[in-house]
């Protein structure tokens, strides 16, 4: 099978049981995407599959043959992605473990809200980001960071 990861086309030979998350971390050495719960509940593994945010821990790699995957390692383009910069400016983390998932999820979420033409306020951000848990409880800075980056 083949994955395009952060713009690079990569042929892979994997056991069918391999999740996209394990393919990224264990086979491609991209350890930015984190394994938290491994059951789709914490969002630490969130990546963009064909531009859409998804839990890579519940995605079988083989089911995403030919997909374009963007991980936290692929977001910066010479300079930090606006969401990465906003997270730094707002100090939107403590331990940082959930941060790659939070940022990838926020990139996808802002795209979804834009496509719907929905209003983006604090309540919407909190609701639409509920798939990303921060055990340090840095939400008070995560939410303003996302709102700031959306502007």
């Amino acid at each position, binding site marked *: 099978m083949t994955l395009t990861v952060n713009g690079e086309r990569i042929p892979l030979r994997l*056991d*069918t*049981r391999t*999740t996209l998350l394990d393919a990224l971390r264990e086979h491609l050495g991209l350890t930015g995407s984190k394994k938290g719960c*491994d*059951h*789709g509940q914490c*969002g630490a593994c*969130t990546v963009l*599959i064909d531009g*859409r*945010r*998804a*839990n890579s821990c*519940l*995605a*079988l790699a*083989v*089911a995403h*043959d030919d997909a374009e995957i963007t991980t936290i390692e692929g977001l910066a383009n010479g300079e930090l992605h606006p969401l990465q910069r906003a997270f730094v400016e707002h100090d939107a983390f403590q331990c940082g473990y959930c941060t790659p998932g939070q940022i990838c*999820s926020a990139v*996808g*979420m802002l795209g*979804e809200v834009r*496509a*719907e033409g929905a209003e983006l306020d604090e309540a919407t951000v*909190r*609701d*639409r*980001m*509920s*798939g*990303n848990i921060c055990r340090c409880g840095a939400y008070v800075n995560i939410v303003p960071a996302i709102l700031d980056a959306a502007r």
Partner: protein
Amino acid sequence: MKAFAYERARDADEAVRAAAAGATFLGGGTNLVDLMKLGVVEPERLVDVTRLPGAVEDLPDGGLRVGASVRNNDLAAHPLVRERYPVLSQALLAGASGQLRNLATTGGNLLQRTRCLYFMDPTKPCNKRRPGSGCPAREGEHSQLAILGWSEQCVATHPSDLAVALAALDATVVTSARRLPIVELHRLPGDEPERDTVLEPGELITAVELPPLAGRSAYRKVRDRASFAFALVSVAAVLRVEDGRVADIRLALGGVAHKPWRATRAEEALRGAAATAESFAAAADDELEQARSLRDNGYKTTIARNTIRRVLEELL
């Protein structure tokens, strides 16, 4: 996870043929892959049906046809769904998380399994997972489980929000073999809790059809936290009022039974009645008279009653 063979179907016939040979359908995998990791299910062969043709199509009668592979977020955001069926869009957005909704499909959502703790834990008995092994939920942790239609064998609830909205919309499920009303797709546990639906082995859901909707509609979900949690109780309602009287009412409850619970008693009480808070309350009482709560879930009856009233009042 046990080893399995994987194949990808190009069309429904190919998928059905694979299933006839023993393959399990794979949609977005958000529930199935999780259950495989937990060892709750151990399919030897998966046939991926996510790349079957699937779209949201406008029907000539003003209804919509939704392909089974349409992802939950795409369906929720579709302009025709948001315009014609607010209850459907609201129910979808109340389910799971943004990243799960991008994976989960329409067909897969309907066929997801209960989140009963005992079903999810292969070290525990469970009549749904291992028929005849018993039901620890009856005396154990059942605060999230059924108050309506349960049996001695099983007190599980169906977790889908989408299915509850579709029940209130009188949707039709199209399979590889037949068409059936959504309210007949899922079943009560009875003596066969291992069967969630009436589908035969290898029968594939290919689409869901929505009849045109006259009236206002809404979905309200009550849960332990504000977002990303299963329903304690949810209510999907369609209401049309003419000259102060209820001309059409369709009401479905989620989180209370083994299937989306169409509140037919309440509907009957309301048809033709004055569209007032008082008749809504009386109808909710009629419906919930049949509730039989377990030791720790009696609170659901109160929430269901209040949520029915609240949703209908909001639709006035």
